[in-house]
């Protein structure tokens, strides 16, 4: 079918812009030679991808999970334990963690999807806390609060590298992959079904949409990617303990990034990570000793300001203000 009218702002050259940005992101790590900034990039990619995973369930389907730390932790612990106990490569462990997390996600979904909004959030919050308590108390398996240290012997097959650069590129790949997946969901029927459910559950049901099933698909994708990011974290930081990969704060933070950046949008979670991660790192580097925890206060202030002045998030606001960004 040929369009009757050209959509306003239809400029074909705009299609090139995203590719230029991707190219710039690919070249950027080669220009930056400073480990501190490379670390920042890795964390932006890590959190951006993780927030994107959270957004698949919470943004598109509107099911606000506050238990996503558990999936992250499951990913980190699964690959690490498989490596420490059986010498299994974390590349395979990453998949195993993803599959394990999505199985748990599926079970959680079957049980909790009958709950709505706040009640679902509370149930998942409890689920996240259960994950934390398990990680602390199953000492023989997880090492409890003392955590697990990963071996440091650079080997690409074992997902372990001497410098930061390989991690930057793996992070960048995961970051772009999650954006691509989000884009694909948003522009596919799965995305329409999820949005329909979020906007009007009864109307969607009356049309025959199996709202439980489509949300389970979102849950499986979301928990799988969260676990993959957990493995990435473990391999990069080479040390995990319950409070670094299973804490409630992680769930809250991932939600915060996505909400401030623009919940339910393709790029919102990435934008959120780009804003918050550098702030946290700079504040910790500059005032980590004199005023520890200051970044949490700044987070709070940003959250309040964003919710007051741009409740849809920063991403959608930018799009509205800068005509150039409006989709071609």
């Amino acid at each position, binding site marked *: *079918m040929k*369009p*009757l*009218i050209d*959509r306003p702002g239809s400029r074909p050259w705009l299609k090139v812009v995203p590719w230029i940005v991707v190219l710039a992101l690919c070249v950027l790590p080669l220009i930056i030679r400073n480990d501190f900034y490379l670390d920042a990039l890795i964390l932006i990619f890590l959190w951006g991808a993780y927030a994107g995973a959270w957004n698949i369930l919470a943004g598109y389907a509107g099911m606000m999970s506050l238990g996503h730390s558990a999936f992250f932790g499951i990913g980190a612990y699964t690959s690490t334990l498989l490596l420490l106990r059986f010498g299994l490569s974390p590349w395979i462990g990453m998949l195993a963690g993803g599959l394990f997390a999505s199985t748990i996600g599926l079970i959680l979904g079957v049980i909790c999807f009958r709950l709505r909004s706040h009640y679902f959030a509370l149930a998942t919050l409890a689920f996240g806390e259960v994950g934390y308590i398990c990680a602390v108390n199953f000492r023989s398996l997880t090492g409890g609060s003392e955590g697990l240290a990963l071996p440091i012997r650079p080997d690409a097959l074992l997902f372990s590298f001497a410098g930061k650069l390989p991690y930057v590129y793996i992070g960048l790949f995961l970051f772009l992959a999650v954006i691509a997946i989000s884009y694909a969901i948003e522009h596919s*029927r799965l995305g*329409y*079904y999820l*949005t*329909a459910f979020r*906007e*009007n559950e*009864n*109307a*969607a*049901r*009356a*049309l*025959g*949409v*199996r709202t439980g099933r489509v949300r389970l698909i979102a849950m499986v994708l979301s928990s799988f990617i969260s676990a993959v990011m957990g493995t990435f974290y473990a391999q990069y930081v080479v040390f995990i303990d319950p409070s670094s990969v299973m804490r409630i704060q992680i769930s809250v933070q991932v939600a915060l990034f996505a909400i401030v950046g623009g919940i339910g949008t393709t790029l919102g979670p990435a934008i959120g990570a780009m804003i918050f991660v550098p702030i946290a790192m700079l504040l910790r580097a500059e005032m980590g000793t004199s005023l520890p925890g200051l970044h949490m206060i700044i987070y709070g202030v940003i959250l309040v300001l964003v919710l007051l002045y741009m409740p849809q998030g920063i991403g959608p606001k930018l799009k509205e203000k800068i005509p150039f960004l409006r989709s071609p």
Partner: protein
Amino acid sequence: MLKVSGLNVSYGDVQVLFDVSLEIRVGEFISIVGANAAGKSTLLRAISGLLKKTSGSIEFQGKQLVGRPPYAVVEAGIVHIPEGRHVFPLLSVRENLEVGAYTRRKSRKDLRRSLEELYGLFPQLYHHRDQLAGSLSGGEQQMLAIARGLMSRPTLLTVDEPSLGLAPMLVEKTFQILEHINKENVTVLLSEQNVFNALSMSDRAYVIENGRIVLTGAGKELLTDEHLKKAYLGM
């Protein structure tokens, strides 16, 4: 085609439908008329499987629908157009229509054909197909809601108060569309407060009061019924 018998429906502890029975034959245009809160919407929602506390029998082409989830009802061939339109405002017109085709999602070709047919029936929707549904006018949203329901190719369309909140001219147009759909071999079950219009269009009608069917008959006959004239037509 559809046979409802002894239907009781409650919201929590409050019973709203009492022993409702009705029968619809293939190709008919049936209206359910009655005042606000008489139970019209509840009846349609119960048929579509949206309500939980339902007892009695709803038989559609030999299949028992009581206790079945909404998607099973849609798969059986009944689609419900809810009161107040309820389009998905942040999805485009085309995306709204695609959601309506959920039960037929397996075939892309089928989807394209349904889209083309409906764009033919609703040219404005074609014109606005990439626009967000929330930006349409009330009349256009009502058309979209009807078109979206038709995407699943139902054999029975249940429409709840399509005239609600529409200008008289648009009400007229909505009814014309429904008549047209009915001529295309879709059986229509319409719930309306606009008693005069509904009755003059219908083959048969049921009058519902306080959750009970109190009167039934051919649409045009009912227009002359003394009780009905007094209660609903102010004559």
